[in-house]
């Protein structure tokens, strides 16, 4: 196993660790003539600076814990008032004064449905682009195209949502009708129309949005394949595709899994684009082309304006579920990356 060419944390940490900072030498004072070493002081600038940096690093931990605490604090009263089972009830009537009922079942299933479909659409294309950028396209072309992918990543989600709702719905509508006409016997395409905001539309927009992140993370992984392995495969007479299957893909597998999971995390939390392109109903259906579909995040954006006290609490409770799901997905993804001690860029 060759070391990764870019210095990861494991390689640099010991180097800096071995460096004894001058201040660590203790208050021994000058040994002879000339200047002396700075002595260690308890409230000196050194310890002040060190304290400041440690505190700002710890802010991240504080914020994550605070998110959990405050969301729970505001969710519990609403959950107490809930007359239905929060985990299995599908509808959303938290602001009913006498009988508030709300549950996350349809929303959670809808979130997973839209995200998984988006992944199915985006991952093959993203891997294709990543391979194209790293192994197929000419270097100059690849850097220009990588730039274009970065631009795609920079477009705000509200713009994709607006585009999806005002423009992209038309081709999806036609495609839905076509799917139903020729493949209507599959339950996924059962709806006979009229077609509008559907899971298919939402997922397609979502797929376009998570494409850049999966592309940039996985091309980062592909780029690190040891040149030796690639050349060895080619020298044994492998075609380019065989070389990719033998050398590039196995080497990058953990990184690929991680990048797909990070894309999934992004998809699960995407809000505004889905608020504009999903049908916002509280039923769950495997029919992808009928009007409908909803997600936890989109529901928060849609319902927030009209929510009163309990309604807000209910939305916060659903946000807590979303927070828990995305934390788990992200932590698993990062653990996979860390175990390989691979370097994944800051594109996430």
């Amino acid at each position, binding site marked *: 196993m060759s070391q990764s060419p870019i*210095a990861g944390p494991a390689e*640099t940490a010991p180097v*800096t660790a071995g*460096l004894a*900072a*001058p201040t660590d030498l203790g208050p021994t004072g000058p040994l002879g003539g000339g200047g002396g070493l*700075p002595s260690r002081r308890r409230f000196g*600038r*050194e310890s*002040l*600076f*060190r304290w400041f*940096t440690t505190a*700002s*690093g710890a*802010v*991240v*931990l504080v*914020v994550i814990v*605070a998110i959990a605490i*405050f*969301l729970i*604090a505001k969710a519990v009263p609403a959950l107490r008032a809930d007359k239905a089972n929060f985990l299995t009830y599908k509808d959303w009537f938290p602001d009913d004064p006498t009988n508030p009922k709300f549950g996350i079942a349809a929303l959670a299933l809808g979130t997973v449905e839209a995200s998984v479909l988006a992944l199915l659409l985006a991952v*093959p294309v993203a891997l*294709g682009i990543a391979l*194209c950028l790293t192994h197929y396209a000419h270097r100059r072309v690849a850097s220009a195209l990588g730039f274009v992918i970065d*631009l795609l990543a*920079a*477009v*705000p989600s*509200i*713009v*994709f949502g*607006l*585009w999806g*709702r*005002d423009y992209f719905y038309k081709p999806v509508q036609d495609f839905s009708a*076509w799917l139903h006409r*020729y493949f209507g016997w599959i339950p996924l395409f059962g709806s006979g129309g009229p077609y509008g905001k559907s899971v298919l539309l939402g997922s397609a927009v979502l797929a376009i949005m998570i494409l850049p992140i999966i592309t940039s993370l996985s091309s980062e992984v592909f780029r690190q394949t040891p040149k030796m392995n690639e050349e060895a495969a080619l020298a044994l*007479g492998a*075609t*380019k*595709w065989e070389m990719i299957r033998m050398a590039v893909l196995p080497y990058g597998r953990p990184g690929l899994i991680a990048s797909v999971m990070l894309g999934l*995390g992004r998809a699960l*939390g995407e*809000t*505004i684009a889905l608020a504009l392109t999903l049908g916002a109903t509280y039923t769950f259906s495997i029919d992808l082309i009928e009007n409908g579909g909803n997600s936890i995040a989109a529901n*928060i954006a849609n319902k*927030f304006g009209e929510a009163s006290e309990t309604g807000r609490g209910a939305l*916060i409770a659903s*946000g807590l579920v*979303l*927070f828990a799901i*995305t*934390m788990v997905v*992200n*932590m698993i993804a990062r653990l996979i*990356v860390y175990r390989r001690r691979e370097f994944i860029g*800051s594109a*996430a």
Partner: protein
Amino acid sequence: MTAAVANALEARRLPRWAPAATAVAAAALAYIVFALGGVLGGGPVLTVVGAVVFFLAGLALASGIVEGSRAARNRIATALIYSAFTLALLPLVSVVFTLVSKGTARLDAEFFGHSMRNIGPQDNSGGAYHAIIGTLEQVAIATLITVPLGTGGAIYIVEYGRGRLALAIRFFVDVMTGIPSIVAGLFILAFWVLIVSPHLSPDGLPFYSGFAASLALSVLMLPTITRSSEEMLRLVPVALREGAYALGIAKWKTIMRIVLPTALPGIVTGVMLAVARAAGETAPVLLVAGGGAGINFSPFHGLQNSLSIFIYDQAGSASTYAPARAWTAALTLVALVLTLTIAAKLLSRRNKLR
């Protein structure tokens, strides 16, 4: 196995014109089957898709017969990889085209000089001046909050951090980059708007503000800035630090005077990318800023709008003139975000550490 050639140099190959010829044949076949024949409903899109499928099948067949199955698979993979690329460019081109064609209708002085105060559904005027102010102020405050904290945290991870705390911080910085933006909004809603703000207002009621939006954006920017600064600090050669230590310079001074200035271009790039992302965020701002139609320069008092929620509002409005305003605001927002992104990328190209 008589024809099997062991030597790759002498193996039979398709002539160079074969892919082009296959492409022409596939296009012709698709035209006949789908455009003229109307199989599966016909139509131009289906014809193009059919042509691609026929091309792949034809190439596989020809290559499989002449060159063998391994080469055929190789050709298919290559063709698929390039078509994935073309496929990904389509939405980008379409978004840009739609933005420019729909967004220029209201691209006038009125749009950039007026708010939506007293603009009814029947008025074809009004603008996003208040929203632009909101976006700029909120993002600026968020940057002021996160840059010291983010670089400070990065310095801790790279220069001071040891043991479990450093590992935990590093890990959770990465995890925090994946927190959904709406959750950041809900957190600030629960923490700042509902719990803290009643103590700050004279009437004891919770209130929305631009500052709350800045806090929500800070939650999103902090991990990205920490992560990118950390990477840049790691790229600073150890020899520079050792040189400074050898001269007897204190560690904090080495970091402030030598390490940070060396890494500065990279850190600035990371900050600009984080700012660009924050400027485009809608969900967190939607929950805590409150919107509002009038001009409000103060992020601490009263409702404040932002470009992204302006777009969301106008997109949901029933007025006939609202879509044009939404698209122009979208064009403005994309111009702002892309300018920042491109500037950041150009800056990072000049970064000598890379």
